[in-house]
């Protein structure tokens, strides 16, 4: 039996261990790109992706789930007669890649015959570079025991906080995302993004129909050291305390117009939905009309000094910011990542674009937002690290000062659900908990906090912020058709908005 297994194993190894060393991979990608140029492509790129993903979960003091995945493959993109063609495969044999290239070329030709608008690219420098997100400990070098014990202990501790806590679950997500991009212009970039994140959720049964839920989560471009910093044990104590407050003391949030203070992680959701998506240029150009939606922003707004918010609103996009989850050095089209002010002193100042969409509206350079969720998807315009940057000159020193400034209103914490209109002009969010603000101080705890606004009204009502910025990662941003899920991060400081509609 053992001999049989060994024989089968060897057969397997020869069949499926097509581990390609870097030089072979580089040659393979370069050859495909050269081949594309020989077939009259004006531009071509070849992107190898290897995506290692591991999810560990514990529930009520026991390990409950362990899964991992490794997806790899190559996407080939050609620009021919002003039209894109794209094909992907995870068969890395040269013959399979050549077949995919021919399909990409055929697709580009068919598209060119049926398209009037010819695609062109903004100029971009040629780069030959290697990039790793900074990290101390590769999460894939740690054995599973060591990784799962904190989850087990964290959930055990949370359950012990109150006998009514029925469910405590924790997860640790580790990812190593490697890309190698070779373009026909001579760019050759290798990037390794190491990312880790954790979540802790507690559910407390507070009488008939009274299930209350609290989730704490964060994801960063860090190694396994992230888990220590996230500190599941402290999170378990805080979560338990919040659950008891929600069950025993919180009252339903009132309805009406109130001043509203948002904590940084929930502010991040508001930024993502109401600034991030509407300023993605492919949306503005109608390319996501059928699925993700459109945008209330027009290309002309860039020249009109368009007022997006009050003078203190500064929204910055910066993929070079580490350890924020959306960190990268180059986007999937080979554009170098850089800091970008999307809204500056309340005025709309930049789109999130790729080389093709930027060129379409007459820009001379792209913003470095071309991203794909894997080898098998075309890169599209996506946000990465987008956050509120307070103007230090006017920002308040502490949350206490901000609450005092608000005088009365509601302090809303931690995202629960969200809904936003197709062109991103109207939204309604709910948070996991809140507090009433009375006479410049926090008073009663609140549950079922729901608020909504028109996007521009909301940002124009931004009155004050604190100084300290906190950034939170989310691995759940969906867009595109077929769907693409990418990892982003958002945040800012505690922020005060005036006269916001509270209630459904």
């Amino acid at each position, binding site marked *: 039996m053992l001999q049989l297994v060994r024989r089968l194993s060897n057969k397997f190894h020869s069949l499926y261990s097509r581990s390609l060393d870097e030089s072979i991979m580089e040659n393979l990608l370069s050859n495909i790109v050269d081949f594309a140029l020989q077939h009259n492509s004006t531009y071509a790129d070849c992107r190898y992706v290897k995506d290692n993903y591991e999810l560990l979960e514990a529930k009520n003091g026991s390990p409950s789930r362990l899964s991992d995945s490794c997806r790899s493959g190559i996407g080939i993109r050609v620009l021919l007669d002003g039209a894109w063609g794209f094909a992907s495969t995870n068969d890395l044999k040269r013959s399979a890649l050549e077949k995919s290239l021919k399909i990409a070329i055929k697709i580009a030709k068919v598209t060119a015959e049926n398209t009037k608008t010819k695609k062109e690219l903004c100029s971009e420098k040629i780069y030959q570079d290697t990039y790793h997100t900074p990290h101390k400990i590769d999460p894939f070098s740690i054995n599973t025991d060591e990784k799962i014990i904190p989850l087990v202990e964290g959930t055990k501790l949370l359950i012990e906080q109150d006998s009514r806590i029925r469910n405590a679950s924790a997860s640790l997500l580790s990812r190593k995302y490697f890309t190698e991009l070779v373009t026909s212009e001579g760019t050759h970039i290798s990037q390794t993004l190491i990312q880790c994140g954790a979540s802790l959720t507690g559910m407390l049964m507070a009488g008939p129909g009274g299930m209350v*839920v609290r989730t704490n989560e964060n994801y960063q471009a860090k190694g396994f050291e992230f888990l220590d910093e996230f500190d599941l044990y402290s999170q378990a104590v805080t979560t338990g305390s919040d659950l008891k407050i929600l069950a025993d003391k919180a009252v339903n949030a009132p309805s009406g117009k109130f001043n509203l203070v948002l904590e940084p992680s929930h502010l991040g959701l508001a930024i993502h939905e109401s600034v991030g998506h509407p300023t993605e240029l492919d949306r503005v150009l109608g*390319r996501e009309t059928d699925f993700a939606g459109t945008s209330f922003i027009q290309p002309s707004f860039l020249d009109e000094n368009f007022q997006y918010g009050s003078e203190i609103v500064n929204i910055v996009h910066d993929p070079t910011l580490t350890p924020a989850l959306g960190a990268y050095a180059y986007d999937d089209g080979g554009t170098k990542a850089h800091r970008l002010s999307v809204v500056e002193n309340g005025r709309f100042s930049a789109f999130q674009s790729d080389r093709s969409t930027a060129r379409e509206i007459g820009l001379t350079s792209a913003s470095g937002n071309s991203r794909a969720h894997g080898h098998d998807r075309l890169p599209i315009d996506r946000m990465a690290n987008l956050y509120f940057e307070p103007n230090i000159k006017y920002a308040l020193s502490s949350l206490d000062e901000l609450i005092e400034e608000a005088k009365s209103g509601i302090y809303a914490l931690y995202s629960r659900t969200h809904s936003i209109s197709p062109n991103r002009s109207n939204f309604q969010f709910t948070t996991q908990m809140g507090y009433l603000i009375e006479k410049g101080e926090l008073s009663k705890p609140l549950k079922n906090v729901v608020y909504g606004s028109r996007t521009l009204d909301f940002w124009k009502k931004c009155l004050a912020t604190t100084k300290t910025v906190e950034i939170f990662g989310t691995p759940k941003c969906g867009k595109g058709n077929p769907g693409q899920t990418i990892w982003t991060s958002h945040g800012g400081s505690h922020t005060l908005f005036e006269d916001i509609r509270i209630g459904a």
Partner: protein
Amino acid sequence: MANKLITKEASELAREIVTIGLAEGASEFQVKIRDTHANYIRFANSEIHQFSQDNIRELKLVALINKRKGLSLVVPTTDGGLKKSIRNLVSATKVNSDDPDQLSFYPTGKAYRELELVDESFKSWDQEFMAETVKKVIHSAHEVDSSVKNVSGMLQTMNHKFVLMNSQELFLSTNQTEFWYGVDILAKKGKNTGRNSQGETNRFAHNIPFFDLAETAAKFAVLGINPVKLESGDYTAILDYYAVLEPLVFINLGLSGLFVKQHRSFLARKIGQKVFSNKFNLKHSPFLTPLVTSKSFDDEGVPTKEFYFIKEGVVESLAHNRLTAFQMEKEPNGCGYESERTSFGIPTATLLEPSRDHTFEDLVQEIENGILISRLYYSNWANPMAGILTGTTRNGFFKIESGEITTALHPMRHTTSIFEMFGEGLELANKIHQPPMQMMPGVQSIMVPALKTSKMHMTTYAN
């Protein structure tokens, strides 16, 4: 064992993987090999702008050791080889502590099932034919009216083949096709615009009226020009088939055995109770072959069957995978869904039963003063446990007066109790559609008729 649906190479590979998994130390081992071949055309501003093809093979490996379970999803090109992945999986599975909830693989003993749901015309859907179809769609929409300016959408063709094999000698294979089509049209006169979208998915292309849907979308887009504002408040409403989809997704999630067991479902305390109108019949319909998730077995290999989740408004059954069925002392009912990130029971192929008599036009004629909602967008809970749903209208929102669709309306947000949305006063149309899924595509598919509801609570403008 004879198998005509998948290649001999895939069958042999599956058998070899299971053998190695057992030899590496797993007490039970399972593999699912999935080959996907897909073409996607996206069009916008009346021309093609993205066209791509995927060819992917993925392996899902599951190991069981003394009631411990590990799951791994890999492709054959993993560095270090597949054997290393299997070894890692088996080693990691051993780390799990005993969990009495984990079950032996299904079934014990021999079983063999195969399923072929393939559109015979699939091979003719090459790149040229797809581009030509899209071109005709765009042309037919522009023919409706000169105000039609932009035609957008997506046409997708897909072929999945998979084999599932485990050490309990379960052997399943499937060969399926899938067509996904959505069209979104903008009409414009001066500064005023109107928009509408239509769409269908199906296993068989001949069931999708590509050009009729484009023409319908164009007609409603033209009708949507010059919208006026509607006062906020409660309205009798027609939800067209596309608008019925999103609330149904939330009902399906609420029917998950897992979410009910954890008291996270708005239906958790409503099992056996009448929650909707007696005209509301929601059926698990895995053998309704046009449904793109129709199947004869679920992700755990459990045979599927037809039954009612909700009959005459009463919650009769939940969707179980084997684990929640075991925990809640029910029989597994073929609703198991398992990915590398999650596993639970969910209604995977559902039909909201239509009426026998009412046409869409009949429903409109019954309304003296109400609204027509063509589609909803970004539905989500405003209060999950109370069943309060919110969302905005999308691409088609009209006033109905004296039985006729009269005036276009500006988009609005609604925040409505799902119990009232499908409560007394519900009337269903007689024609069913399978709109494209935006949430959980590939996991669930739903066939729905248009319907009349006595209450949609419209709140604020969403434009």
